[in-house]
């Protein structure tokens, strides 16, 4: 595809449920980032992959958050036992591998935890 895609676009979960959010990056892009954007705030870094290797997960807010990219393409962000404070938009970004270009962001998944 031409850009980064994410699914689902909207997810409503009851507190305590597990959720899985998917990111399909731009084909062939090595790097993949996840960000969390709370309402009225700027995006905040969660984790970064280079191919299948998770090189930085310092932004994950708790051990309930887990991300994987087993084949170096599609990535899944999993949140276990969701809490209300997990409500946010989760953005996936896929920068090109060469050149001083910007990161390309997906449309995001809006997660609402009731």
């Amino acid at each position, binding site marked *: 595809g031409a850009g980064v895609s994410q699914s689902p676009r909207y997810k409503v979960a009851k507190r305590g449920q597990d959720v899985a959010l998917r990111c399909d990056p731009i084909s062939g892009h090595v790097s993949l980032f996840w960000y969390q954007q709370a309402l009225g705030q700027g*995006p905040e870094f969660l984790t970064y992959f280079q191919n299948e290797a998770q090189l930085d997960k310092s932004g994950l807010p708790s051990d309930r958050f887990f991300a994987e990219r087993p084949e170096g393409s599609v990535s899944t962000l999993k949140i276990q036992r969701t809490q209300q404070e997990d409500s946010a938009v989760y953005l996936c970004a896929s920068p090109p591998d060469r050149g001083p270009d910007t990161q390309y962001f997906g449309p995001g998944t809006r997660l609402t935890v009731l």
Partner: protein
Amino acid sequence: ELKVEQNPLFLSMQEGKNYTIYCNYSTTSDRLYWYRQDPGKSLESLFVLLSNGAVKQEGRLMASLDTKARLSTLHITAAVHDLSATYFCAVDKVARDDKIIFGKGTRLHILP
């Protein structure tokens, strides 16, 4: 720790007026980004600034970078209603294998 501060956080202005959004960052960075975000939408890249003195323009928007002052500005000329959005400044440290740090955003509302 790399931090990014934008001001103002909220701005309401009349069509036809000029205004500037300021972005300060705390330590040396490799790149400075400006993004636009419409309500309920993702981030749209506007500019990437790489070096001291860099200036880029697109339509009514012009961005500049002063790396010595660690300051970037986004200038809006003769604002039109369609420019109403939230504008984010962001920086990163190491080429592409490090995270982007965002400011809190400037919510711009242009009155017709």
